[in-house]
């Protein structure tokens, strides 16, 4: 019988906790860079949040003449018009900024663009979002992210000691902040689907952290006298294979989405891809140092601690 290739080295003894200052330093720099990028460059909000018009077009007879298109649309007097070529050279995306003058002004602008495109160009997708809806979506997005984080925080708090909860949430903020910073840096459009990706990431990136924390808790019960630094190191190394392997399978699946997916989910899949990497990094190198920093309860005699229904964990 084929047992599979147990390729991941076991019994590793990476002294993560001894090197924690370097790892935290790297993460701190990344977070600061992310904040700086968000502050100075900002997110490239899509029309979901900013309002305006988005038109995806395809030329029926050959490649799109970008310069010609730019000239035509620039002369319409609808403000800033961005034109972005797509993978197929016959296709392009047109973005028109939100027009002053309320809801009907957006429709008028969209109509002008449609008329200017001419017969040879097929409109494959058109999205027009007015100021009322974009405001609501923005609000919904902020509420969703906050509620998801609060929900996850409550869950972790309920399942673990509070120190674990705080450490996990700090790691989560770290993941989300750096991912958003990356989206801003690479100028990805930030819309509803990207928020959905961030929410999924929030739920997912905590998984690896939970795997490590479960093991820490288990080891805390088993090795009552082991110094905390050693115990954390042991737990991280013991779970290293599953932290990396679980992330790999999800990464592979999302990679397929990134490579074969259309423009609509490119931002989504990139967010997930990058987020999985950062989430794995923080589960291994960041979450446990936070835990050390806050200290944990060592006396687990009695053993009926919070979350006891599932006593030992993987």
């Amino acid at each position, binding site marked *: 019988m084929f047992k599979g290739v147990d390729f991941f080295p076991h019994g590793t003894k990476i002294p993560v906790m001894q090197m924690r200052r370097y790892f935290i330093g790297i993460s701190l720099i990344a977070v600061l860079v992310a904040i700086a990028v968000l502050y100075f460059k900002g997110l490239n909000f899509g029309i979901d949040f900013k309002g305006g018009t988005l038109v995806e077009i395809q030329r029926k007879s050959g490649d799109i003449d970008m310069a010609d298109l730019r000239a035509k649309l620039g002369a319409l007097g609808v403000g800033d018009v961005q034109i972005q070529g797509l993978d197929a050279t016959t296709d392009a995306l047109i973005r028109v900024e939100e027009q002053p003058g309320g*809801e009907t002004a957006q429709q008028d602008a969209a109509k002008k663009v449609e008329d200017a495109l001419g017969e040879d160009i097929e409109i494959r997708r058109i999205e027009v979002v007015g100021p009322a809806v974009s405001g609501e979506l923005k609000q919904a997005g902020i509420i*969703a992210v906050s509620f998801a984080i609060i*929900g996850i925080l409550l869950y972790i708090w309920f399942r673990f000691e509070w120190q674990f909860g705080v450490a996990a949430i700090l790691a989560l903020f770290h993941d989300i902040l750096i991912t958003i910073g990356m989206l801003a840096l690479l100028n990805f459009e930030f819309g509803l689907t990207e928020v959905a990706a961030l929410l*999924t990431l*929030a739920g997912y990136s905590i998984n690896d952290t*939970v795997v490590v924390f*479960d093991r820490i808790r288990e080891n805390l019960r088993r090795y009552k006298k082991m110094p905390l630094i050693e115990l954390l190191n042991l737990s991280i190394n013991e779970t290293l294979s599953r932290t990396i392997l679980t992330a790999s399978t999800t990464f592979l699946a*999302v990679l397929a*989405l990134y490579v074969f997916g259309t423009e609509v989910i490119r931002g989504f899949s990139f967010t997930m891809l990058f987020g999985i990497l950062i989430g794995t990094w923080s589960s291994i190198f960041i979450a446990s140092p936070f835990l050390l920093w806050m200290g944990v309860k060592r006396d687990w005699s009695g053993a009926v601690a919070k979350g006891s229904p599932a006593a030992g964990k*993987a």
Partner: protein
Amino acid sequence: MLHFERWKIIAIAAICLAGIVFAMPNLFSKQTVEGWPAWMPKRQLSLGLDLRGGAHLLLSMDTVELRKDWLTTLRDDVRKKLREAKIRFTGLGIVGDAVQVRIVRPEDVDKAYDALKELVQPMGNAVLGTNADDMQIEKVGSDVLKVQPTEQGLQQRVTSAATASVETVRRRVDELGTTEPNIVRQGQDRILVQVPGFDDTRKLKEVIGQTAKLTFHAVHPQVTAEEAEQTRVPLGYKIYPSAEGDLVGAYVLQEVPVVSGEDLVDAQPGFDQRTNEPIITFRFNQSGARKFGRFTKANVGEPFAIVLDNKVLSAPVIREAILGGSGQISGNFTVEDANNLAIQLRSGALPTSLTIVEERTVGPSLGADSIEAGEMAALIGTITVAGFMIFAYGLFGVFAVVAVLINLTLIVAVMSVIGSTLTLPGIAGLVLTVGMAVDANVLIYERIREELRSGKTSISAIESGFSKAFGTILDSNLTTLIAALVMFWLGSGPVRGFAVTLSLGIFATIFTAFTVTRLLVSLWVAAQKTRKIPAPL
């Protein structure tokens, strides 16, 4: 952990089988499925607009206009009531959000109050036991009465206007001959229109957009619009602009129409026999025909005005009494205008104008491309993950792949049965589920390996692998479920589609990891001939 009672095995097999049966229609074309015998499940996944192509419009009602309309009607009602009661009054008008009137004789004030009281409609709710009126009447000073609509009254108006608008929009969209349009009220004052497979949004917008309030008015016999503009508009009359919206060609018309569009029973586009110009022919119902006949009979030789959305289309002179109850409207229409207007007139006027606040339209070709890309991503994603799992875990990896396939089947089956919509982000959710579902297997298998390394026998390693991984798998899936539920709650359209597949995927993952995988492993253990079971991983 490895022992299964017989009924459990049967139950698990039954669930998987049901999944396969209910997911199966999606493998065939719609026509094939319809030809199946009646007892077979036929429901297929419904595709979102982003995949099948179609138009999505979010319309907002003009509540300000609605309030204004109501106040105007209320003012006319007040005038009528006071005249009926033979009470003299002055200064009737709209002040802010109320109608005010000054009663001339102080002794009439109480009588007027009672007369106006008849206008008030109670809006009691027997079930809730609440009681409110749609408007209230107040005395201001000694001789002024103020009639003010209440907030509840207005809410009720908005609600009934929304219901009426939904119906009207539905009739108009149906006229376009599309299939399965979805038209629903959203929130207080919004209407969502989704028309699958239809991407001529311009036509859709034209047909939906216009209020199409058609009225027929008497024209003031002497005063022209210009004179009225310079001096004052005669009582009960109002200046109506021309179709171009300017004062040239404007008319002074009696404000209360002779007949309105509600009395129309039919409207059809056509051509004028003499000029060959596009026109609309219409027919009144009985009461409309009677009113119109009486009016035209009394006003032969005078003009009357045909007004659409408060703009004068034309003002022909009445040559003879029109008693048959039918007629035609001309007004410099193009053929398309005439077609659209006929649709709008047939379907009735909208209670208020609708503004488009959001539009998302996907052409059918892009939808098809998205489906193709989604299928490709799902296929490649599944193959890669399957390859990885088999490489890393051998036969047990195959078990994981079987579990994932059943997982996907179950998601598709449930979505088909409950009729939820598959969107492009929804496909992304499926692909993501493939990646995350095998995580459960990784956790179990890695634990088994660890137990084996610590010297346990195969059986006990497998036992504790499953039991100890349980909590972790639950924890990790529940955090993702929290995020998915938040998305479902707050999201709309495509994002909600993603939340649906993701949540279903999580439930399916928990199910397959602890039943399907475990069952396959236990069958494998049972199939071992030797007493000492070899290490599986």
